[in-house]
């Protein structure tokens, strides 16, 4: 079991953390949820489709996290402000920080499923894996990604336009 966990960790940890960090915007929370995901994998035993299962759990954890009330979110924000995010790469320019902020605002404009599908696809998951992770039909993945991509770009460009108008 230890070997299995080690193998899962080696194979999926970085990708899982990146997905969670992109979804949540907080590297520390992403690491925590990644750990939780692996703990659940240990309890699950044998996994039929490891990547889909892991990311399905992670996506659920993201939704659970997001459903917590504003008080918890403010707590997380305070946590982020108090603790130097040494693990998070420091943007090397103001423009990149602004770009990241604009991108996050755009991502926040997406529905949960659309966001998850987009981020999972960016992690290299195929349509069947995305479908399995999100509990949707494989035939719906294209529609979901099409919608997510267009809305993301529209939201990002709207954000940029607002900043231009300042």
């Amino acid at each position, binding site marked *: 079991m230890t070997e299995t966990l080690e193998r899962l960790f080696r194979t999926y940890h970085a990708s899982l953390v990146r997905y969670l960090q992109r979804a949540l915007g907080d590297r520390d929370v992403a690491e925590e949820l990644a750990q939780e995901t692996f703990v659940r994998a240990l309890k699950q035993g044998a996994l039929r489709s490891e990547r889909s299962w892991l990311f399905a759990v992670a996506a659920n954890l993201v939704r659970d996290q997001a459903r917590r009330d504003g008080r918890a979110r403010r707590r997380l924000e305070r946590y982020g402000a108090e603790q130097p995010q040494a693990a998070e790469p420091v943007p090397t320019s103001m423009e*990149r920080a*602004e770009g*990241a902020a604009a991108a996050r605002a755009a991502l926040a404009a997406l529905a949960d499923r659309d966001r998850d599908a987009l981020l999972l696809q960016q992690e290299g998951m*195929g349509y069947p894996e995305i479908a399995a992770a999100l509990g949707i039909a494989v*035939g719906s993945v294209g*529609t979901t990604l*099409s919608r997510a991509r267009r809305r993301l770009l529209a939201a990002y460009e709207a954000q*940029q336009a607002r900043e231009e108008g300042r």
Partner: protein
Amino acid sequence: MTSEERMSEEWPAPEWTDDGHVAEPTMHAWLDGALAPSAAEGVAAHVASCAACGTLAAEVRGVIAGAARVVALLDGEGAPPLRAERGGGASSSVPPRAWYRRPAVLSLAATLLLVVGVRAVWEGGARPAAVASMAEAPAAANAAVTADAMVAARSQALTDTGAVAVPKATAPMASARMATAPMAAAPMATAPMASAASPAPSPVASPAPPSAARPMAAEQVAVMAVSADAVVTTCLLVETLAADGRPLPPRMQLAEGVEGDVRLAWLWDAPRPQEPDAFRLRRVRPDSLAGADARGQGVVVTLLRDGGGWRGTATATGAAGSAVRGFRLRSAAPAACDGR
């Protein structure tokens, strides 16, 4: 068979619109490599033969690339921001703005000049259909060619085709969603040269350009101002540009292309001239050309017959994103553009 192998056989079924076109979700699936091989072949064959679907495919490529870039921004590093300039705050170390995101694009006064040396493309099937990797395509070399030499070489052809000038379109262009849709059409004025702000057309014996302006390379001198619905009346229409993008006194010269190549350049005019991105293209399929510019940005131009002319899209992809432009060419002398 493992569950993963079983999962890998769950291909999404391709979807078609009521009028027989590829539905957008299927286009995304095709470009994501998510269709079964047989379905992917069917879609590819249709896209290759359908102008509307070809345009959609190019557009969706841009959408996919644009969305990927936005997602990458979440990582806070690596991908340069899509906007590289802020008012008075741009750092010299900040990567240049993606060329389709420059102020000229967002400016309502932006004008797109599509430079195509079409003659080189259509000069014959004898040209080798070399498949060139975009990354390996040689950088466009600005060979100096005197204007007078070009005029002397092509004057007769110009006279025959009745080349006309196409004034640059200065109508506002849609600034939004550059990565998601071709630029909105700006009505094109296709006025004969004589009606342009110039003396009676004499393309065959124009004087040398002003000494203050350095002519662009001969390979880059075919210029047409285009929008999504732009039409030029000859595929041999060219205009010499100064190094800063300003058109020189009106003259018509044919594009000189290296064998098998066509020169394609994007020029952004207003509010200030931009440095042109010159692409050197090679034919990779009968209706498609691909290449790269000196900075490694690639472009794929797809041209499809459309009645008496050609319709196409140009998708340029660079480190900071991609954009799609649709264009249409109509020749007053179709025979000259038939590749014969």
